[in-house]
């Protein structure tokens, strides 16, 4: 029996989503491990090294521990919102991955599985190539505010409420710079589509880091603020707010907040690689054999993403936190004008 092409397309999409989710969750689990080991390295300690060889099974032990913890809901909390807030932040963080291209086109050869004949098909290593890819990403990051704000509000605790309010103000402020920093790239590419942005960077010197260096700096700073990572983690500032918006959370709900924080870090790193460092394009592509080119490109993309994840951790354990007024001043008085300047300069450069 020959499989209908439409069903085949759907099945391939499902397989891609499954693989992507698996990779993202594994990366998130090992990112927490990497964070602890790198922080230990920076602070001249050993870090977790007891569970399994070199402590490699530590994320598994953490997961089991989270599941067996008591699920505590404060008596005065709004139970419904308290329950859905972690999901509201996790879902947008995962949805971003749908438009990130991991590699170019792949051809699946024809084969037979359980009596089903599957024809030769070509597919891209990207779940969906939206015409408005960049806007979709900005939309998802803007929706992610609700999880934090509602998580802070629903616990009915002054510290969590302050954390939630800080986060909504911070994320709205830095979304502007985040969006405006990409405008230069959109002007040069002439499209909002992720595949076209990657296609515009096929040569090594075409990478947008060389053509839009200022935009890259603004994007990285704004992305750090959007993810509430140090030096912008006033949302969960331990010294002032106990634990910020997730103070009252425990067990798997707390771990969902952690997973979504790390998942959005992975998404932001993948975006930095895609927008500024050529996506899956690598130098010396044409010298790699035809069978290995896709593997080389995907590995290159993962390597770039991994590097930015390391930068995230590196910065967190090296820099102190900003004051809240400094945070707002940087966002509105420095980053926003610089992003506008970048748009103007790009426009002039394109005309000349």
């Amino acid at each position, binding site marked *: 029996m020959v499989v209908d092409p439409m069903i085949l397309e759907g099945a391939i999409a499902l397989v891609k989503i499954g693989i992507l989710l698996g990779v993202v969750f594994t990366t998130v689990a090992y990112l927490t491990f990497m964070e602890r080991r790198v922080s230990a390295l920076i602070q001249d300690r050993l870090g977790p090294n007891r569970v399994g060889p070199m402590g490699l099974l530590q994320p598994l032990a953490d997961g089991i521990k989270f599941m067996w913890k008591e699920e505590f809901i404060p008596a005065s909390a*709004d139970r419904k*919102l308290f329950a859905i807030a972690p999901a509201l932040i996790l879902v947008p963080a995962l949805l971003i991955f749908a438009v990130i291209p991991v590699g170019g086109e792949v051809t699946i050869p024809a084969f037979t599985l359980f009596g089903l004949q599957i024809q030769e098909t070509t597919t891209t290593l990207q779940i969906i190539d*939206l*015409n*408005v890819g960049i*806007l*979709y990403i*900005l*939309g998802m990051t*803007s*929706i992610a*505010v*609700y999880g934090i*704000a*509602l998580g*802070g*509000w629903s616990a009915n605790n002054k510290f969590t*409420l302050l954390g*939630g*309010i800080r986060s*909504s*103000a911070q994320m*709205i402020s830095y*979304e502007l710079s985040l969006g405006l920093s990409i405008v230069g790239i959109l002007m040069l590419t002439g*499209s*909002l589509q992720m595949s076209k942005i990657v296609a515009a960077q096929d040569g090594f010197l075409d990478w947008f880091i060389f053509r839009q260096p200022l935009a890259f700096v603004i994007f990285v700073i704004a992305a750090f603020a959007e993810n509430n990572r140090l030096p912008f983690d006033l949302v969960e500032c331990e010294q002032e707010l106990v634990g910020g918006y997730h103070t009252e959370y425990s067990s798997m709900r707390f771990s969902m907040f952690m997973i979504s924080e790390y998942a959005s870090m992975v998404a932001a790193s993948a975006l930095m690689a895609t927008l500024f460092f050529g996506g899956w394009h690598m130098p010396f592509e044409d010298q790699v054999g035809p069978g290995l080119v896709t593997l080389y490109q995907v590995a290159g993309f993962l390597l770039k993403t991994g590097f930015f994840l390391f930068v995230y951790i590196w910065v967190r354990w090296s820099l102190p936190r900003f004051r809240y007024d400094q945070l707002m001043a940087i966002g509105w008085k420095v980053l926003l004008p610089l992003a506008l300047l970048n748009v103007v300069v790009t426009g002039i450069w394109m005309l000349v």
Partner: protein
Amino acid sequence: MELYFFLFFAIVAVASSVAMILQRNPIYCVLLLIMVMISIAGLYLMLDAQFVAIIQIVVYAGAIMVLFLFVIMLLNLSREEGGVFRIQKPLAVLLATLLFLPVAAMIMSYAGGGSTPPAAGGDAGFGEVEQIGTLLFTKYLLPVEIAAVLLLIAIVGAVVLTRKGTVSVGE
């Protein structure tokens, strides 16, 4: 397939707007309104208008409703007090009926088979960013510029209103 998606988005939109009006807790009202926005974005998506759908989410669900939520959380508004809306209720019923009449008339005219609504995605590139951008900067250039100036005035006005007392130089 398309019908099921339409029914899903339409039912979610209508149900959440009704629930929003009946709900007394302002935070839930905001959340239900966001659900309305997102399901309307889904309807736009079904009409092949990807750009409008995403803008609906970015602008309404992502920016305006966050501000609503922010204000409600900051003022810690709890349940709305009864008795405030006395004249508004009959007035609202009257206005809603008046507004519904032209819509009903339109629906009836289509139901009669007189004319069919234009099919979505007729020409290639319909609803894409390029087309909307070209239209905005050629045919509708003047309205766009006027709207931009209005928004700028609104921003300056907001800044002036929130600045109390004299403006200190070098602050």
